[in-house]
């Protein structure tokens, strides 16, 4: 196991370098990093050149990347052009997005798995067809439409919730945004659980469990669920990274000042250091979540042995 972890960590290095480099290139090469500094007008050439020297932007890109990564590993994510430290921005943004992600994951687990189990056991019945159709609709309606509609209905028309979230973003205010963020994944968890249950329901070991004279409840919980939920758990695990990175739309709709908000601002203002810094952390979260999921997989399924 130990050797496997080490090897996986080593494999993560090229992926990490590759994806951060990709983002770094996108931000630096395609955009003009000093363009956003002189307000609405374009900078005059002299000022631009001076600014570039100041930030080391006159050097070749690969050198900039190395310098940046070097700083990064000493915990220095650089400063945004407005002088605020990127780590400070992170300190306020990440807790908010993590809370939002936690709410979303809870929705996926509680609602998604429950619906999946029910439909998987009742395949072909009206409940199954209805839920299946519903999941298709949820998947088809883009998150920003779902978000705007829920905001319109719950926040404006019926006034059950506040249409936008206050800067502190306590858990209570994140319930609707969390549901919106989770919506598509939630539908997938339902479908994945359903498929998995329906497939395993016909498995030989389930038949054995019935032949052993176990009560139906025990057959389902001890034998069917334990096996069927393995792919679901791993899906939810890998979804953590995707949710945090995908929170941009949700955070924009509900005006949540989290990671997505900061990234959006950073991109609009072509704020290189902010964007690269945040993306780097998101990529790390994604990679670590994937590694943990792989290890969790070995725990859940004893047939998998990592060497």
């Amino acid at each position, binding site marked *: 196991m130990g050797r496997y972890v080490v090897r996986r960590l080593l494999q993560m290095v090229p992926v990490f370098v590759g994806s951060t480099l*990709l983002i770094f290139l996108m931000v630096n090469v395609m955009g003009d990093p000093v363009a956003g500094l002189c307000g609405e007008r374009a900078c005059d050439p002299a000022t631009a050149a001076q600014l570039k020297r100041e930030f080391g932007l006159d050097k070749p890109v690969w050198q900039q990347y190395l310098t940046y990564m070097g700083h990064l590993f000493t915990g220095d994510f650089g400063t945004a052009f407005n002088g605020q430290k990127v780590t400070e921005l992170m300190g306020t943004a990440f807790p908010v997005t993590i809370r939002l992600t936690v709410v979303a994951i809870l929705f996926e687990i509680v609602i998604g798995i429950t619906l999946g189990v029910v439909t998987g056991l009742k395949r072909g019945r009206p409940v199954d067809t209805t839920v299946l159709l519903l999941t298709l609709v949820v998947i088809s309606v883009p998150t920003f439409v779902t978000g705007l509609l829920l905001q319109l209905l719950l926040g404006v028309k019926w006034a059950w919730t506040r249409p936008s979230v206050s800067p502190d973003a306590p858990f209570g205010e994140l319930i609707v945004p969390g549901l919106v963020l989770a919506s598509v994944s939630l539908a997938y968890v339902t479908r994945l659980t359903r498929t998995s249950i329906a497939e395993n329901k016909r498995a030989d070991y389930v038949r054995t469990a019935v032949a052993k004279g176990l009560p139906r409840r025990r057959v389902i919980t001890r034998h069917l669920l334990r096996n069927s939920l393995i792919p679901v758990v791993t899906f939810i695990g890998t979804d953590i990274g995707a949710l945090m990175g995908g929170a941009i739309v949700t955070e924009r709709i509900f005006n949540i000042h989290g990671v997505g908000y900061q990234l959006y601002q950073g991109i609009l203002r072509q704020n290189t250091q902010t964007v690269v810094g945040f993306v780097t952390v998101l990529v790390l979260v*994604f990679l670590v979540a994937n590694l943990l999921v792989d290890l969790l997989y070995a725990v859940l399924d004893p047939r998998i042995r990592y060497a």
Partner: protein
Amino acid sequence: MPEQQPYEAGRAVAGTGMGGAMDLAASEATTLERAPGGPEGPGPGGFGPQGVGPAGRPRSLWSDAWRDLRRNPVFLLSALVILFLVFISLRPSAIASGNPLACDLAKAQDGSAPGHPFGYDGQGCDVFTRTVYGARTSVTVGVLATLGVSVFGSVLGGLAGYFGGLWDAVLSRITDVFFAIPVVLGGLVLLSVVTSNTVWPVIGFMVLLGWPQISRIARGSVITARQNDYVQAARALGASDARILLRHIAPNAVAPVIVVSTIALGTYIALEATLSYLGVGLKPPSVSWGIDISAASPYIRNAPHALLWPSGALAVTVLAFIMLGDAVRDALDPKLR
């Protein structure tokens, strides 16, 4: 790497970082990778000689699937919706006589009026006309992005799966890199600096970030197909690589790619709208549902119709493609019958 390949393969696909719809299209399709071997799903108890219909006529995977699809109302309905969408993309003036760019601020946010069933948006443009014309953008982006992604992804993935070795290892790492970047985020970064206001940058971006998904599917199904006995036999008889790939492997490996591509088409349409909503996809004066939804969201209180009509059109379009893909997958996957 774990010892048991099949489990790892299933997991790896489920674990794509693309976020949203693309993940599960892929993970649900993994069951398909076993399908091309032929309809071998044993019926209850395994009756009679398998793979032979009641009339004793051997059935192929495709004719079997087509027989299923023709009788599937979900398939027929979604195919009908898609045909209609393609039609109004080609000839929007056939059902909407107005000009989508002709707006009258005096009528801003007005409700429906004779000849203007969907009412007016915040700029006083006719919502019906704009919704009809918006279909063209969505269908164009969806179809072209899917074509690009499928061709690019299946060629790269198929070759990697067939030849294996270093090429495969390098490609796998490259796909890992792309999977690690959240898709909306990548779109924001890349497209925020593009000034061209055509569909091409959006399509290019989708191909750039979408191909790894198809490449992974294609790689998996080529590896499965490669292990089939008839491929081994063809190789033993001295067939060339090109011939084996085109004649023996491609027809058997293409089913999962088609299914995932159809479902992905819907998600690309949604993605275009999302990017346009965020202000980096298409920009006015282009006509796109994403732009209209974005423009209508500040007036959500007073003129919800300006938001609801394009949203509804978008949802129905995406739904049609996803349902089509779903129906095709069910028809091609004998295991879940």
